[in-house]
C-alpha cells in the first residue's frame, strides 16, 4: 500500500473520460484502487498487475468468469491475463452503467467464448453452464439435462442453424434479453 495516492494528470483524465464510459469520479476511484493493487504510488501507467493480484479485488473475487474477464481485457503479449491501468479502465468502462448494449454484448461474447475461436459452440456453452452452476460434481446438471439445455439455447439463438452462436446471433439474442443490462454491471 502506498502512502499518498498520486494524482492523475488532468489531460490524461479528460482523455480517459472521452475514451471510456466512466465519469471523472469513477476514473479517480479506479486509479486509487489500482494503485493499491500495484502496491506503490507512482507506478507508470503502463505497468502491469498480475492476474492473481487483480483477482483479489472483491468485485472479481467471487465471479465465476474472473479469469476469462482478465484474459479478455488483457493486452499483454504473454497472454497471462495481467492488466495495465488502461486495461482496467477498459474493463470498468465495458461493465459500467452507461456502456452501450453493443459494447456489453461484444465483451460478453468474448468472455463466454472459452476457446477464443469466434463462435460459441456446444463445448463453450457447456463450460458456461458449468461455470454458472458450480464446478463440483453435485452441482452440475446431468448429461441428459445438459443436452436438453444446450439444444434449447441453440434453438433460440442459432438463426442460421450451423450449431454455433456467432457474434451477431449473440447480439441479437442479447438485445431481446431484458436482464442482461442490469446484470452485466460492475461498479466499484
Amino acid at each position, binding site marked *: 500500500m502506498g502512502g499518498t495516492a498520486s494524482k492523475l494528470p488532468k489531460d490524461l483524465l479528460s482523455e480517459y473520460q472521452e475514451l471510456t464510459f466512466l465519469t471523472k469520479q469513477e476514473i479517480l476511484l479506479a486509479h486509487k484502487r489500482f494503485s493499491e493493487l500495484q502496491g506503490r504510488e507512482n507506478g507508470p501507467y503502463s505497468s502491469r498487475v498480475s492476474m492473481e493480484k487483480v483477482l483479489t479485488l472483491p468485485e472479481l473475487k467471487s465471479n465465476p468468469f474472473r479469469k476469462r474477464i482478465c484474459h479478455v481485457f488483457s493486452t499483454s503479449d504473454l497472454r497471462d491475463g495481467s492488466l495495465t491501468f488502461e486495461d482496467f479502465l477498459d474493463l470498468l468502462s465495458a461493465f459500467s452503467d452507461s456502456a452501450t448494449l453493443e459494447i456489453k454484448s461484444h465483451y460478453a461474447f468474448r468472455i463466454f467464448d472459452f476457446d477464443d475461436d469466434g463462435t460459441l459452440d456446444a463445448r463453450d456453452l457447456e463450460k458456461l453452464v458449468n461455470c454458472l452452476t458450480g464446478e463440483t460434481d453435485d452441482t452440475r446438471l446431468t448429461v441428459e439435462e445438459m443436452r436438453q439445455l444446450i439444444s434449447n439455447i*441453440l434453438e433460440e439463438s442459432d438463426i442460421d442453424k450451423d450449431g454455433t452462436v456467432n457474434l451477431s446471433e449473440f447480439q441479437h439474442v442479447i438485445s431481446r434479453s431484458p436482464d442482461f443490462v442490469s446484470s452485466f454491471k460492475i461498479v466499484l
Partner: protein
Amino acid sequence: MMDAPDAVFWDRPAPVGHLLLDQLPSYQSLLYRRKSSVRRRGSGWGSGRSRQLSVSSGKWAEQTHSGEELRPVRELPKNMQDKRREKQQRLQQGGALTGWGLWRLNVHRSLKRLKEDGVDLLSALQLWRTDIHLIEGMFGTGILSYFSFLRFLVLLNFIMFLLMFVFVMLPVILTSHTSHNITYSSTNVSECSVYPASSRQGLVAFHEHITDLLSGTGFLERTYLFYGYYNLEFIHSHFTYNLPLAYLLATVSYLLLSLVWIVKRSASGFKRKLIQDEDRFQSFCNKIFAGWDFCITNENAARLKRSSLLYEMKTDLEEERIKRRMANRTRGERCRIYVLRAGLNLFVMAVLVTCFYCIYVATVFSQRKQVEGAKSAFLQELVVEYLPSIVITLANFITPLIFSLIITFEDYSPAFEIRFTLMRCVFMRLASIGVLLFSLWVQITFCGSSECPCGYNHEIYPCWETHVGQEMYKLVIFDFLIIAAVTVFVEFPRKIIVNHCDHGLVRWWGQQEFAVPQNVLEIVYGQTICWIGTFYCPLLPAINTVKYVLVFYLKKVSLVTNCRPATRPFRASSSHFFFLVVLLIGLALASVPVTVSIAEIQASRACGPFVSYSTSWQVVPRGITQLPPGLRSFLLALASEAFAVSFFVITCLGMFYVIALAGAHKRVIEQLRDQLAMEGRDKRFLIQKLYQAQQASFGRSADSKGLRRNRADTGLCLVEPSVVLETQA
C-alpha cells in the same frame, strides 16, 4: 428441432474450421482479434487449428470497418491504445479545422462534459444510493428491484404531498396568519349543516388520547389532517382563490401524475415484454447469458446464487418436460382436469366471497359500535375501531396459503402456477379495500326505511368525508404496525431459534427468505389506500412517505441480518414490469371510489369546502361559467359529444393502424429468419460441392504433379477432411 445435417454439428465435438469458411467476408467482418497478435500467431499455435489469412482478408476487414467511423470512439470494442490510435486517425482525416470549426468542436465537447457532470451530480443525490448498492452486492438484482421500487414510491408520495400542500393547505395556513378577505362556505339547508363537536369533553384519560391518535378521532378530527377542516370557499387578495376548485383539481392531478409517471417507468419494460417470445415464461438464453449478476461481491451470496441458478435451470428443464407431457394428454384426462379446475375455481370464489362478507360484517359492526359511543375499556375500544383492518389483514394472511395449496391440484406448469397464485393474491388484497369502502358507503347512505333528506345519513355522519378519511388513516397506521410487528416479533426470533436450536421441525421451517412478491403486494396495498384516502385526508401522502422510509430501513436491516436469498429467485426484469402492472391495477382501483364519490355522492353540508355544491364535481361547471367567454366556449366544445365521438374514432383508427403495422413487421421477421436459415444451408451445400470438386481435381493433379497440397497463394485452401458434411437430400 434441428434436422439431420445440423445434428452432425453438435453430436460430435465442434468441426474444425474450414479454411474456406474463414475467408468469407461475413467471417472477416466478425473477426475481432488484434491484427498484430494474429500475425504473430499466424502459423499454428498448437490448438490444432491453422488459420491462414489470405492476403485479401485485410481488405475485407477495412471495408467493413468503414461504417464505424460515424460512432463515437468510446463505443468501439477495442482496447485503449487502439481507441487512441483511432481518435488520432479521425483527427488527421478530419483535417485542419479552421478557427470556427475548432471553436464549435470545443464548445460541443465542453457542453457534453458539463452534461455528464450534471448527470453525475444528480445520481450522487439519489436517495439511498449506498444502501441499495450494498443490497445489490449481497443479494443480486432481484431483491434490489423491490428496494428501488420502494424508493420510487417514496418519491411519488412526497410529490403528491407537495401538490396537496401547495394548492390546498398552504392557502389555508396563510389565511390563518394573515388577514385576507375570506368567504366561508355556507349553505341554506339548515338541518344538514349541524356539525356537533366531536372532541371529548371533561376529564380525558390518557389512553383515550392514544385511541384518538391512532384512529384520528377526538382532538385530531378538526385539524389539517382531515377534509372537514377546509371549509373556506374563496380567498380574496390580489385575485380570488377558489379553494374547492383547487382541492378538486389537486386530487385529479395527483391521480394523473401517478398514472403518467408509472406508465413512463414501465414503458421500457413493456416494450421488451412485447418483443420477447410470448409462449416462454423466461427464455433459456436470458437465463444463461444474463444469468450471473456481475455485481455480487459477497462469497456467500455467490455460492447461493450458483445454487439458485442450478435450481432454476433444473426447474425450467423439468417444466419443459411437463409441458411436453401435458401436450400429450388424452381427451379423457383433459376433461377430468378441466372439471377439476372449474370446481376448484368455484371453491376459490367461495373463499373470496366469505372473506368479503366477513369484512362487510366487521365494518358494519365497527361502525355501529362507534356510533353508539358507549365507553369501554381501552383495548376493547381500539379493537372495535380497528376491526375492519384486523379482518382484512387476517384474510390477506390466510388466503395466500389456501391459494398456494389449491393450485397444486390444478396441474398447471410451475411457472404458470406462480403467476396465477400471485394474480389471485393481488385481486384479494385490492378487492378487500373495495369491499370496505362499499360497506362504508352503504352505512353512510342508509337512513332507515325512508330516503335520506340530505343524500346521506346526516345524524350519524354529519361529516362523512372526514369519517372515510379516518378509516383510511386507520388502515395506513395498522398496515405499518403489522409490518413492523412481523419484522420485529417474527423474523428476528425466527433467526435466533434457527441458529441455536437444532430440532428437525425448526430446520424444516428454515431461515427466512425474502419473498419479493408478497412484500411488493404489501406496499402496493398501502399505496392504493393512500391514493383513495388523500382526497379525504390531505396529509396522508406525508404519513405514507414517512411510513415507507421507515419500512425501507426495517426491511433492509431485517434482510441483512435475517434472510437468505430465495431458492426460486424472482427475475429482475419481469419483476419490475410485474410491480408496475400491479401498481397500475391499484391505481385503477383507487380512482374508482374517488371518482364515484366526487361525481355521484352528495358532499356533506356540515363541513369541508364543497358545502354549497350538490356534488363535489359541481364546482367545475360553476367555475367554467365564470371564465371569459372565449375560453368557456372552447372548454364546452371539448366536453361536447361531437368532439368526444370524433376523438374516439380517430384513436381507434390510430390503434388499428399500429396493430396492423406490428403484425406486418412480425411476418417480415419470420420470413427473414427462414431466409437466413436457408442461406446458411445453401452456403454449406456449396462448400461441400467445392470440397468435392477440389478433391477430384487434386486427385487428378496429384497424379500428374506428385503434390498433394496446394498453398494459400492460389486463393484456395485445402479443407481439412476431418468432418464430412452431409448435404440435404
